[in-house]
């Protein structure tokens, strides 16, 4: 299990990719998959590229060149959405790496009730995102929410977690981390467990302190897990929509809008061409960030 996860962490740009399977099966064997791929993936991709260049009403499409893209970047709240998306991706991904690692260290130690605690950490991952969002929205209500009422009982006036434009995006990001850190933890647990104990024994004999053992043995050797967690959570953060929509709908105003929620609002308003252009922008942005990041993380791994 542990090894499988560690190896499974490099599917995005495997440097050892070779045409090992070429000629292994007859051509017709690939046909069903090829048809599904063409109809359900290739066709919509090219169709969306076309519609992003039009003013589209679902019934007719007028070609307007790159006007939708110009519009998308001209509007302040669309640009704000881009910035927020990056903030959201970095904050959620960063916290998931740090907290996931710390929790994994705790849960691989000889702690009492380890199996139960592992289940507890993973449990939020299994719950519906929208359900979590609605529950936390109620708890974060500025005057009647559980969090601020608890703070008020010890004399602290809590902020409007979701209604103050300074905090709204970060509040949602924290809930996202709470919900998603279980998956990061499980990946890290797998990574830590797969490190051979001999390394630790050797380090101990050389007189390494626990701190040194963490920095020089654990951290480098869980690198595949780190790469997986960063890439998965960063992609998840960049395209995140459900949690934000359930909690703030991008509000107050446009202050917690991310690209995905901006795109959805354009679609709701009937700007189908513009929202398709937004999706193309999102696709390009994710590709531009993730491809180099994944290459970087994987190169470091093979260098070792």
């Amino acid at each position, binding site marked *: 299990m542990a090894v499988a996860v560690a190896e499974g962490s490099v599917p995005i740009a495997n440097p050892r990719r070779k045409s090992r399977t070429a000629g292994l099966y007859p051509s017709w064997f690939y046909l069903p998959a090829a048809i599904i791929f063409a109809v359900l993936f290739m066709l919509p991709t090219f169709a969306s590229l076309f519609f992003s260049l039009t*003013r589209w*009403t*679902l*019934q007719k499409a*007028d070609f307007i060149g790159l006007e939708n893209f110009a*519009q998308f970047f*001209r*509007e*302040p*709240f669309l640009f704000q959405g881009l910035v927020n998306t990056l903030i959201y991706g970095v904050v959620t991904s960063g916290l998931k790496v740090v907290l996931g690692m710390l929790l994994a260290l705790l849960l691989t130690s000889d702690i009492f009730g380890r199996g139960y605690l592992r289940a507890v950490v993973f449990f939020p991952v299994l719950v519906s995102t929208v359900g979590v969002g609605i529950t936390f929205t109620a708890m974060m*209500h*500025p*005057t*009647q929410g559980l969090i601020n009422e608890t703070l008020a009982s010890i004399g602290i006036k809590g902020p*409007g977690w*979701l*209604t*103050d*434009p300074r905090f709204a995006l970060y509040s949602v990001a924290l809930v996202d981390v709470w919900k998603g850190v279980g998956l990061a933890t499980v990946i890290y647990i797998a990574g830590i467990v797969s490190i051979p104990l001999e390394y630790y024994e050797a380090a101990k004999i050389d007189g390494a302190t626990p701190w040194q053992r963490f920095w020089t043995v654990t951290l480098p050797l869980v690198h595949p897990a780190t790469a997986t967690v960063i890439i998965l959570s960063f992609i998840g953060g960049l395209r995140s929509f459900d949690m934000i929509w359930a909690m703030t*709908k*991008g*509000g*107050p*105003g*446009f*202050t917690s809008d991310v690209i995905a929620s901006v795109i959805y*609002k354009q*679609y*709701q*308003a*009937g*700007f189908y061409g*513009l929202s398709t252009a937004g999706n193309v922008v999102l696709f390009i942005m994710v590709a531009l960030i993730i491809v180099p990041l994944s290459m970087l993380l994987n190169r470091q791994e093979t260098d070792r």
Partner: protein
Amino acid sequence: MLMRNLTRAALATTGIVVIMAGAASAQDKVKVTFLFDNAPSTVAMAEALAAAFEAKNPNIDIETESRPGGADGDNLIKTRLATGEMSDVFLYNAGSLFQAINPVQNLVDVTDEPFQANVIDSFKATVTGTDGRVYGAPIGTAMGGGMLYNIPIYKELGLSVPKSWAEFMANNEKIKAAGKTAVIQTFGETWTSQLFVLGDFYNVQAVVPTFAADYTAGKAKYASTPAAMKGFERQEEVFKAGYLNEDFAAATFPDGVTKIATGEGAHYPMLSFAVSNIKELAPEHINDVGFFAIPGDDAASNGLTTWMPAGLYIPKTSKHPDEAKAFVAFVASIEGCDVQTQSAGATGPYLVKDCTLPADVPPVVSDLLPYFQEGGHSAPALEYLSPIKGPALEQITVEVGSGIRSAADGAALYDEDVKKQAQQLGLPGW
């Protein structure tokens, strides 16, 4: 055990009987589907209308279905029209939202139906397509966009209904000094934030009579028309003066209705249809809430911005257009008005000729009616005079109304939003 088996058998048998009965009657009945928004008052009204119509027309079976309101509802209507899956009759806004669903291409022309003789012309204008044909009939009553106010607070502090903005702000100051919330806002549901801007249109057109036409042609802008900017500025002013309820950013529409009815706040800028929500949420306080138009600069030219009722439309894809027309004709008749009054209460004047309201209407409605009568001062909201309404207004007014964005900035941003909508509609001059 035996008991349970028997019950199960009995249930199964009745189930079969019911299914057979259903099959038998479905054969000679025409099924007409009817789609409307899920506001409780709409649902009550729509169900009552369907039942009354079925009683009169035993060969037609109205199958009701509700949908979300707001932006989700807009989305659903557009998608179902585009995919040819629209119900035989559907309820949707008149005015600019009606224009956005491409009526000429999607809807059945009802200009020459006999029931149009009963419909008041001012409504017909708001459901007329670009080809000059009429595509709908009214359901529900006309509304006013203005200020709900709490009558006990006004009595307690000895205030009188303001006719000018200065008087309104002076009242607010006294209410705040008395330790009460002067103005309720409920940005937890963003659509409720638009009234300061949209409800100010009577005052805009009083100063700039050609605004609607120039705005549609792309010549007049909110940011460059001082009278139109006022709505944004006033929303900002009310926030800056600290008149809002503490939870304004998270409160919802039902919260706002409850607050205004129970006296937790003195003013709530809202459409007058909220009277049906007061009836539902705080019926014992129905006589504690009054209504006045949003005041402008000049007390002498005070008047009300009015909203048209929603329309009923028939899509071209309907398989039973004649039965659907019969149902629409029933709703737009005096009998239909009476069913609506009984089920949803009297909320304002009907747009069907000779429809009457009962004598004992709640104060919100009796405050509203004089604006509509002969010699009253009212003008339709901009969305009934122009096909363009920018979809992001509610987010912009939330930002202006919570001090995130300045009024001038908000107006300029809204002009951009309007431009997008005009381009999407393919209007000339943009």
